[in-house]
């Protein structure tokens, strides 16, 4: 408590007149998922572009409208809202403030709205590659996935993963089993929320006990429970691996980098930052942004430490599949895919 007092100067800013705002859903900005990474995008924009930033976390659905109203009162130029739950509230705010710009992550309107840019992700494409990689890497012939809550943004990962596993079986004539998700029935294993990490750990332990050795948790922070289970199983002599979701887990969940086969990435941070950059230059358009393998909105992360353990054959097959998906030759379909 005895540093020197700073000079009284205004903070340096290149775009001091532009305000970018963000409203989370009830997951909050540290949900290890879409709120967090969108928030990171805006934070980066604040740093790189010198814009002003306003944020509001919602604790419950009732806060959405109030938070948005607050943003309007604070003269936000662009307001990013996150998740389908904010769909109606964002629409209403946009209609009431036709001169303001909005973006909504992971949600798309039936009828486009001229001042809202939906930002959606065809996650199944990347998850498909992960499924293929997982199946190829499995030594037990069983892989698994589970979700936090059964919502499309979660199950789309599971659908893609399931198809990837199926593709591997089809191409290789193998019978790698997938536990935890039945694509036809659209049902499987869920922990019930995005909080109880120990439940996620127990679920994963059960998967491993049932023979699975590659597990993809789609459950925000609960994924850490899966990581803990995999680490524990491996100290007990197993050889299980993890597929992370949303961000490259090798970087964002370094505790588990030794067991991280790969990750299914949704690059929301980049997309948000790009959007802000464009909007601050006056280049807003409301055509939906759809993150795909092609535009790198979704991606399969590098194998990092596992790079040497994944055969070149598998890598090239994955590259080929990726190319086929990008070219449209191979369609990855999920009931939850963007329309």
């Amino acid at each position, binding site marked *: 408590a005895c540093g020197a*007092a700073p000079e009284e100067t205004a903070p340096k800013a290149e775009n001091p007149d532009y305000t970018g705002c963000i409203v989370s859903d009830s997951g909050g900005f540290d949900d290890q998922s879409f709120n967090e990474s969108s928030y990171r995008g805006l934070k980066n924009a604040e740093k790189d572009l010198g814009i002003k930033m306003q944020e509001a976390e919602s604790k419950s659905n009732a806060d959405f409208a109030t938070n948005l109203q607050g943003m309007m009162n604070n003269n936000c130029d662009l307001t990013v809202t996150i998740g389908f739950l904010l769909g109606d509230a964002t629409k209403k705010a946009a209609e009431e403030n036709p001169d303001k710009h909005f973006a909504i992550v992971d949600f798309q309107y*039936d009828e486009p709205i001229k001042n809202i840019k939906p930002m959606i992700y065809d996650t199944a494409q990347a998850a498909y590659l992960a499924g293929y990689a997982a199946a190829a890497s499995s030594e037990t012939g069983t892989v698994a996935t589970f979700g936090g809550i059964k919502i499309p943004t979660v199950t789309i990962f599971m659908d893609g993963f399931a198809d990837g596993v199926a593709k591997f079986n089809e191409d290789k004539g193998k019978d790698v089993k997938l536990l935890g998700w039945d694509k036809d029935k659209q049902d499987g294993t869920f922990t019930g929320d995005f909080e109880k990490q120990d439940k996620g750990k127990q679920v994963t332990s059960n998967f491993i006990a049932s023979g699975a050795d590659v597990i993809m948790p789609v459950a925000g922070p609960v994924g850490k429970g899966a990581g803990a289970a995999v680490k524990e199983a491996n100290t007990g002599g197993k050889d299980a691996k993890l597929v992370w979701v949303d961000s490259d887990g090798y970087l964002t969940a370094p505790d588990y980098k030794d067991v991280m086969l790969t990750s299914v990435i949704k690059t929301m941070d980049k997309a948000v930052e790009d959007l802000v950059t464009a909007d601050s230059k006056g280049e807003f358009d409301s055509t939906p942004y759809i993150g795909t393998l092609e535009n790198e909105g979704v991606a399969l992360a590098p194998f990092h430490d596992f790079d040497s353990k994944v055969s070149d054959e598998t890598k090239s097959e994955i590259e080929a599949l990726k190319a086929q998906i990008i070219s449209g030759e191979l369609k990855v379909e999920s009931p939850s895919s963007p329309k």
Partner: protein
Amino acid sequence: MSEIKAPVLPDPKKPGNDLFKSITQGPGLVSVLGVIVALVIGGLLIAITDEKVGEAAGYLFARPSDFFSALWSAGTESYVALFNGSIYNSSQGFAPLLETLTVSTPLICAGLGVALAFRAGMFNIGAQGQLIIGATMAAYVGFAWHLPVVVHLLLVIVFGLLGGALWGGLVGLLKARTGAHEVILTIMFNYVALYLLDFLMNTEAFRRPGETNPISPILDANAIFPSLPGSRLHLGFLMAILLTIGVAWLLNRSTIGFEFRAVGHNPDAARTAGVNVARSTILAMAFAGALAGAAGVAQVAGTEKVLTAGVAGSLGFDAITVALLGRSTPWGTFFAGLLFGAFRAGAVNMQITTGTPIDIVLVVQSLIVLFIAAPPLVKAIFGLNRKKKRTSATESIKAGAK
């Protein structure tokens, strides 16, 4: 012999005073002082966690004035923001007050449900589940049926109340028939309701057409409470007022309420006096559930206009605090609900304008509840009502013994 019985000031009637005597004893002054203490502590907390204050503390000795002015402004700014967001601000006038009333509506309704059950001797942790089922039924009627104006809204309300009553009544029934403890039952029923709603939201019947996300269609215009133009305040608030009046009447002036209270205090005596205790238990829980169901109606037909898995938020749990803070009296609950509503509405504004993290708002809010509920502590802080301390008697006792 002379008459030596001293006159005693008549006590005002204190309903349910045994449980809540501790809180009721504080007159208005003490409550006000309680709020002040809580605000001061909360202000300090906000100030301490404020970034600018933190920075200024870094060079506290170099320029102390910075630190203290930062401290002061962080605290006051936050409260100004709270006030601006919940009651009045220059740009919107009293629109924030309307917002407060809107946010209070479900809190009051669900709070009444908890309070009513409390008065009947039961701790209803199940407002959450009752609210969910009420909201689910109300919303379904609201978006799946298409009926004329007035009729539709009435049916939405009726089904919402019925849904809550069903969920609460079931607990009452199990308790009355099997003796199972309502605390266990209500906790478990909350989860069951939650998963049930989760399941329903994943069915075609409840999902918005063309939508894969678990969100219901917007309720029919006829099924929605009319709202005050330019605000979110809707007629659901009137419903909350009417329910408060209704519960007050029920508890204090009706035979049913008399039975509830008798069973709540002494079921043996109630039974001996001819009250059907089982029926009272079931009925009280059904009424409590219906009130929580009304909160669900206020959510789906008023504030949100759609049904989602998160329709209940943490309302069912906040309702417990609201009810107890209101000493489980109907009007106490009403005003506690308004207070909480103001916090909710103001907190959102506080977060946006001063960057106070929403978690800190929760902390301040909790502190205020604690201080309002603890008149003896407040009295102690302000040195009111100090008892004369008796000197330790151990020595004279030792002398006296044997």
